[in-house]
């Protein structure tokens, strides 16, 4: 690593580590920056960890930045390795898992914290969990699936969010709290007194002033309840401990740094060693260790200033918190008790709004429960310690405040520290037209998401109330799919080249050309003239490019049913061309990996099987179970229907890949519920048609589109849906996203109405007739002499090959 001795090592890939990297990069684009994450995951947003307890949740949704961010910003990212030893004097760090030694000039410890587990009996019994990592969440979700009674020890922010999630998972849930009110660190007595009933209203039990003395266990050693100091007990099989954090300071201590509860830092966030800083939950500043997110961002900014040689002082943070429990709006900021307190309450409606000021009217804190209108305005007043003459008027005014009244420097997104002014400037300067774009550009709303309505409101104000812009198919020319389709229709265009000459789309960066190809192909069917420059390499050579520039070859194996002779040919090809790997795929296909471009025509010739289209945004596979042919439980002939469906659909391009399955009974062995199109045989010879399922990066059970009386009808509905999706899906929009965007009802209306269905099937037939069921035939009829070769290579000569064989 060049210049590593000047480089910055950030230890810990949580919110703090990520915030430090981003703050440093905002000041210095060049200084070498290495981020070491102890967990295997890319940096994710632990504040929203509760989301992982929701059904079908996925960690990717919590990702702080996409993969490419680290490379684009020259941040060397190491995941799954811990810094085991740090030598501040020599500027070195050794990594676990054989990660070697990293040299550094300055180090920032962002090691965060562990869950605090009080030392009571049986606290490590099976059934007792902490609530900290994605793995914890997976264990809790698994344990919750059999419907246990659940208890959460700890009635703070995290404990309440855990209890809410467990309750939503169907567990009878009780929150057990040591003191006499919930969230005592953030709430005054008045608000806390109203929060308990609000939580109970959600069906969650609340036991205050209960000190847990131990976990009761059954004969097998598993948790069966909690015992309290007053002798009482609570029966529960699932226990989540959320009583607080314990700063992770082992590394700092071993490195000789001064440690109290946290790593002691000065006002520049520098520890007792001048080359080492600490930020976040592991840091202790002026005796305070923060366990909430907002101060971490403040600290990261100051730490970045220090690292980049900018004089800056951290004077502490004003704490603020939002409870992310549906149905209970709660926002607090600053101190909640003070000399002057203005309170507005509607006890019956569960509303409590309070503003705290000093004697001179300086705003010091706010609590909003049950009605969080104006939270941004009041939080901003707290943050800026604004002086007001009439606190009651400010509180009243906040109820009616809109985003328009916020000052430019009011922080809208507390998760990412984004101010109103930055959002408005981005909208104006970059001409942003949709909330999605604003979130992507400014990061506001990409954290817990609670400020997204304000982001949308700001956008609406800037656009004078005009509707949001849709997604662009060609972002360079700001053209949507519908706009481009209209041009295609009006001028009867039949190729991407013509389209580019007509309106410029596809000519700037070229990235949308595959999408344009699909659009024209879909709209013009048989009149479409394919131009290979407008296709990805996969579609130019009909194979899937791999990380080393070689290709994978997947022949069509309809329904996953293959003959011994085909298997023999596949084996022969693998040996003859010395392909380094033969892999059975998840879609019941066989993947031959590591083929060179020049070998492809000869491989296809020797296979003698059609292309499986595994490289394209197209019909991929139809998985089947053995159905009535062999299975004891089969209700419908899934194999014959699966093969028939695959034959009907194959060769068609689609907005994104389409994976299908046909299962012979609701045991669903072919995984039909999680396919783009999935058919399931049910009792009485009937078939269910599911659409929009997914089991990849996103997991979603498909929507039941229809239950029909025969396999023929099931196939017809499936094909009508396919055509509907082909015509209305955005480029690169999978069916699961399409279903979420459009809704099942609208799709049912479009696909099941007999007249609509008939026209869809008609257009499907036209498209099917125009598509190429086997592009591998280009092996003997290449579209260009160099289709499968480079300037200095030649494709394997099929004629010579045949002569040699004979």
């Amino acid at each position: 690593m060049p210049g590593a001795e000047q480089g910055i090592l950030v230890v810990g890939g949580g919110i703090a580590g990520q915030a430090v990297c981003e703050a440093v990069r905002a000041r210095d684009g060049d200084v070498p920056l290495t981020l070491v994450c102890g967990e295997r995951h890319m940096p994710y947003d632990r504040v929203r960890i509760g989301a992982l307890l929701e059904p079908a949740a996925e960690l990717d949704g919590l990702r702080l930045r996409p993969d490419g961010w680290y490379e684009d910003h020259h941040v060397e990212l190491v995941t799954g390795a811990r810094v085991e030893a740090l030598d501040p004097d020599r500027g070195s760090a050794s990594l676990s898992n054989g990660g070697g030694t990293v040299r550094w000039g300055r180090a920032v410890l962002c090691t965060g914290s562990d869950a605090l587990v009080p030392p009571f009996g049986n606290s490590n019994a099976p059934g007792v969990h902490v609530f900290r990592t994605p793995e914890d969440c997976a264990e809790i979700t698994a344990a919750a699936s059999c419907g246990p009674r659940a208890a959460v020890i700890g009635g703070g922010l995290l404990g309440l969010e855990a209890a809410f999630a467990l309750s939503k998972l169907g567990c009878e849930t009780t929150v057990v709290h040591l003191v006499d009110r919930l969230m005592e660190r953030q709430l005054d007595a008045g608000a806390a007194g109203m929060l308990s009933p609000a939580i109970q209203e959600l069906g969650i039990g609340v036991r205050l002033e209960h000190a847990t003395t131990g976990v009761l266990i059954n004969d097998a050693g598993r948790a069966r309840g909690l015992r309290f100091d007053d002798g009482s007990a609570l029966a529960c099989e699932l226990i989540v401990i959320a009583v607080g954090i314990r700063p992770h300071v082992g590394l700092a201590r071993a490195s000789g740094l001064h440690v109290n509860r946290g790593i002691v830092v000065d006002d520049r966030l520098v520890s007792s060693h001048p080359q080492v800083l600490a930020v976040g939950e592991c840091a202790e500043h002026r005796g305070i260790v923060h366990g909430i997110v907002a101060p971490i961002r403040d600290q990261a900014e100051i730490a970045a200033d220090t690292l980049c040689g900018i004089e800056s002082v951290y004077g502490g943070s004003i704490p603020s918190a939002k409870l992310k429990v549906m149905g209970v709006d709660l926002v607090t900021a600053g101190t909640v008790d003070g000399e002057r307190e203005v309170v507005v309450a509607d006890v019956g409606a569960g509303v409590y709004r309070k503003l705290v000021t000093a004697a001179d009217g300086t705003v010091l804190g706010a609590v909003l429960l049950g009605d969080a209108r104006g939270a941004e305005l009041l939080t901003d007043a707290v943050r800026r310690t604004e002086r007001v003459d009439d606190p009651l008027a400010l509180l009243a005014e906040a109820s009616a405040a809109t985003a328009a009244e916020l000052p430019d420097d009011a922080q809208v997104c507390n998760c990412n520290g984004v101010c109103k002014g930055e959002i408005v400037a981005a909208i104006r300067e970059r001409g942003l037209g949709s909330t999605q774009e604003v979130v992507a550009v400014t990061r506001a709303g990409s954290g817990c998401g609670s400020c997204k309505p304000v982001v949308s409101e700001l956008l609406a104000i800037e656009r004078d109330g005009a509707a949001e812009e849709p997604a662009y198919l060609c972002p360079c020319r700001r053209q949507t799919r519908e706009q481009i389709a209209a041009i295609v229709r009006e001028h009867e265009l039949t190729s991407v080249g013509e389209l580019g000459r007509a309106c410029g789309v596809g000519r700037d960066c070229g990235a949308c050309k595959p999408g344009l190809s699909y659009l024209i192909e879909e709209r013009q069917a048989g009149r479409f003239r394919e131009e290979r420059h407008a296709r990805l390499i996969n579609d130019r050579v009909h194979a899937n490019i791999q990380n080393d520039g070689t290709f994978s070859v997947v022949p069509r194996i309809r329904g996953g049913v293959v003959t011994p002779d085909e298997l023999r040919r596949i084996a022969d090809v693998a040996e003859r061309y010395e392909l380094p790997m033969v892999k059975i795929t998840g879609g019941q296909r066989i993947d031959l990996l590591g083929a060179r471009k020049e070998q492809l025509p000869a491989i296809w010739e020797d296979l003698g099987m059609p292309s499986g289209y595994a490289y394209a945004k197209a019909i991929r596979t139809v998985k089947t179970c053995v159905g009535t042919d062999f299975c004891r439980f089969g209700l419908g002939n899934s194999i014959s229907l699966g093969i028939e469906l695959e034959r009907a659909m194959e060769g068609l391009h689609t907005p994104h890949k389409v994976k299908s399955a046909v299962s012979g009974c609701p045991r669903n062995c072919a995984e039909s519920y999680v396919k783009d199109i999935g058919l399931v045989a049910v009792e009485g010879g009937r078939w269910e048609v599911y659409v929009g399922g997914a089991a990849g990066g996103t997991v979603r059970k498909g929507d039941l589109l229809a239950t029909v009386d025969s396999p023929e009808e099931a196939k017809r509905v499936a094909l009508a849906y396919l055509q509907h999706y082909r015509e209305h899906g955005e480029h690169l929009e999978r069916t699961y996203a399409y279903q979420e965007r459009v809704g099942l009802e609208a799709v049912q209306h479009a696909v099941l109405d007999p007249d609509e269905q008939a026209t869809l099937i008609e257009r499907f037939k036209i498209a099917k007739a125009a598509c190429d069921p086997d592009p591998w035939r280009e092996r003997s009829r290449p579209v260009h002499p160099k289709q499968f070769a480079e300037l200095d290579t030649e494709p394997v000569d099929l004629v010579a090959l045949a002569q040699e064989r004979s």
Partner: protein
Amino acid sequence: MSALPATAPWTLIGRVGDVPELEGRSVTIAGRRIAVFRLPDGWAAVDGDCPHRGGPLSDGIVSERCVTCPLHNRRFDLRTGVPLSGGDGIAVHEVHEHAGNLYLRLTG
């Protein structure tokens, strides 16, 4: 990168018809893989391996002025080698067309 001779020689790399318009093909010269592109108004040549993860740029989608790596969508200006989506840039080389033949000279 090794130092280039003061004037690198021109190398015959193929015929004009070997590269379809708005596509690229690679050629190895002096041990370096070079990507050659045919653009509507002439030719462009750049280092063939993407500096990000070594993706074959000659297999990328080509527009009138840039190429996008087929592996992770890094984008480069074909005239200057400047990265358009972050990361390192790439060297550009000279292509000369004469009597239906293509010649290449390493210049970067």
